[in-house]
């Protein structure tokens, strides 16, 4: 019998059984003004040729700019082999197959991915990935509330140095679950959470979020912050850039006891920018919290014949078993991204990743030195950074960025909207992919804008 559910006959029989005339009547509780009637804005179908041409046109609109924007998504070199292998038929699927244990290759890859993430973060266990960095932080917050049984407050200290988009997503997800995200301000002169400014008696707080590097690229005093949090019975949630962990201390070794939960976006590990996605989130934790961790975990075991095999473990937390008490319904939707990241990490190796991280760090320092040589441009914070930094411009930042874009330079991310105190400040990034020529070009164009402004002060008129 072919598996074709919902034939006309089936539907009629089911409606009859429950005494309803037509399917439409099942939705009559939803007010008419909230319902859609068809998707009128969807254009008619195109041929393969037509859609290819349209997509090529759309893709070409991005142009080939030289990118100095980071702010959460980073352009890194991806060895050609990564996506060549990822898109092989054996790997080319977004999901863990439903009969998971029949797909030993996929499970082995996820097991290796978890091992690599656990190694990078210094944690005991990693799950098999989440949607993206922002939702991984939201999940980490929910997890901390479940895991910290000493705390009754459901209050999380969320520093303003955490990515603004991550904070918004976390708020959206946890807001209606009685969880309070309390903002923690930073030192406006130095761009980090000043440990000396932390409250002496914070009261009952469930967890402290620590970004490393923070949204400004600046390194936080992670050891002191971790110990402070633990001394007040808080858990520590680390939000990290995974590439930075190849040269920075793993969260597992922060302070005396290490962070409790580590999360972040995996995009820097082999995932192209692709105008914003898909990316993937990662999450790892200490063994003692593993049962509160959402998502899947793959374990290695031996079968009856003594051969190595891989299996889904800790499924007891998932929704098909725990129903409403499940810690998550996240499986492995970002499986293809994780496949690419695993192959990327394997090909680059610890040394290769560290080299890319060091080269990125070198480049941002060179770029900041170079650009702050321009009159009207200055570095804002004096703390060590990873591969991003904040520059203050003595001109309206949006106009400057617009004019740079005319010359195919994406000059950075304007911070004023998210941080009113940083008006006309721009967050710039230089990864290992930026050449000296790229940076010289940026310098030249920015210098031009500022010298024109000096000789003939007038509002900048963008050309586009």
């Amino acid at each position, binding site marked *: 019998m072919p598996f074709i559910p919902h034939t006309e006959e089936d539907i009629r029989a089911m409606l009859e059984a429950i005494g309803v005339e037509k399917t439409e009547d099942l939705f009559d509780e939803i007010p008419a003004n909230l319902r859609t009637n068809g998707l009128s804005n969807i254009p008619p179908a195109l041929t393969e040729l037509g859609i290819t041409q349209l997509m090529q046109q759309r893709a070409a609109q991005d142009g080939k700019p030289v990118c100095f924007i980071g702010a959460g998504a980073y352009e890194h070199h991806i060895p050609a082999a990564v996506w060549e292998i990822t898109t092989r038929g054996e790997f080319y699927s977004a999901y863990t197959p439903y009969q998971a244990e029949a797909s030993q290759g996929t499970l082995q890859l996820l097991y290796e991915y978890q091992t690599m993430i656990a190694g990078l973060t210094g944690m005991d266990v990693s799950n098999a990935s989440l949607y993206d960095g922002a939702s991984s932080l939201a999940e980490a917050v929910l997890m901390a509330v479940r895991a910290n049984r000493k705390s009754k407050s459901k209050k999380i200290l969320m520093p303003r140095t955490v990515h603004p988009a991550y904070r918004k997503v976390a708020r959206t997800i946890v807001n209606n679950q009685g969880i309070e995200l309390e903002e923690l301000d930073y030192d406006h002169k130095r761009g980090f959470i000043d440990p000396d400014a932390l409250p002496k008696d914070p009261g009952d707080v469930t967890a402290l979020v620590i970004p490393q590097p923070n949204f400004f690229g600046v390194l936080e005093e992670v050891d002191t912050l971790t110990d402070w949090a633990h001394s007040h019975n808080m858990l520590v949630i680390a939000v990290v850039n995974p590439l930075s962990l190849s040269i920075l201390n793993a969260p597992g070794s922060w302070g005396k006891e290490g962070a409790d939960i580590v999360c972040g976006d995996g995009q820097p590990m082999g995932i192209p920018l692709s105008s914003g996605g898909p990316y993937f989130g990662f999450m790892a934790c200490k063994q003692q919290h593993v049962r509160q961790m959402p998502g899947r975990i793959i374990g290695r075991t031996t079968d009856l014949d003594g051969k190595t095999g891989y299996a889904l473990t800790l499924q007891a937390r998932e929704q098909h078993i725990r129903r409403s*008490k499940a810690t998550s319904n996240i499986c492995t939707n970002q499986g293809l991204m994780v496949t690419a990241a695993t192959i990327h990490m394997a090909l680059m190796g610890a040394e290769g990743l560290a080299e890319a991280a060091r080269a990125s760090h070198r480049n941002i320092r060179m770029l900041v030195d170079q650009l702050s040589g321009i009159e009207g441009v200055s570095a804002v914070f004096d703390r060590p950074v990873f591969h991003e930094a904040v520059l203050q411009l003595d001109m309206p930042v949006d106009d400057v960025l617009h004019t740079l874009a005319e010359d195919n330079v994406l000059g950075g991310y304007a911070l004023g909207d998210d941080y009113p105190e940083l008006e006309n400040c721009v967050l710039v990034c230089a990864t290992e992919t930026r050449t000296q020529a790229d940076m010289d070009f940026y310098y030249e164009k920015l210098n031009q804008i500022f010298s024109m402004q000096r000789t003939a002060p007038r509002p900048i008129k963008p050309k586009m």
Partner: protein
Amino acid sequence: MSNVPADLKYTKSHEWIQDLGDGTVNIGITDHAQTLLGDLVFVELPEVDSEVSAGDECAVVESVKAASDVYSPLSGTVIAVNEVLADTPETINQDAYGDGWLIKLKLSDANELTDLLDANAYEEVAAEDH
């Protein structure tokens, strides 16, 4: 038929209660329940000093097959939890009525004890599961 000691009280949701006679009780899950669950791999217990009301979820027992909530049969304050279960949850499989106890409760209303099932009544409940 599973083992159902006559000196204990029971609930329909497969908890047992041992009245210690001094306003406190020990609570666990029945032998029948552990048989249905299979090998236990994890037990989540409440914090000592926490307050529970009759019918509240007070613990979770997780086996290789399922995770089940344990409901507190009575109201009171948790005065002890079985710490041994953190490392050896299989103790419940081995000795559900003895070393496999879950929590010790100081009752806030001893009258609730009269609402519980006796061994005969529970045997009937357990028999319906088959």
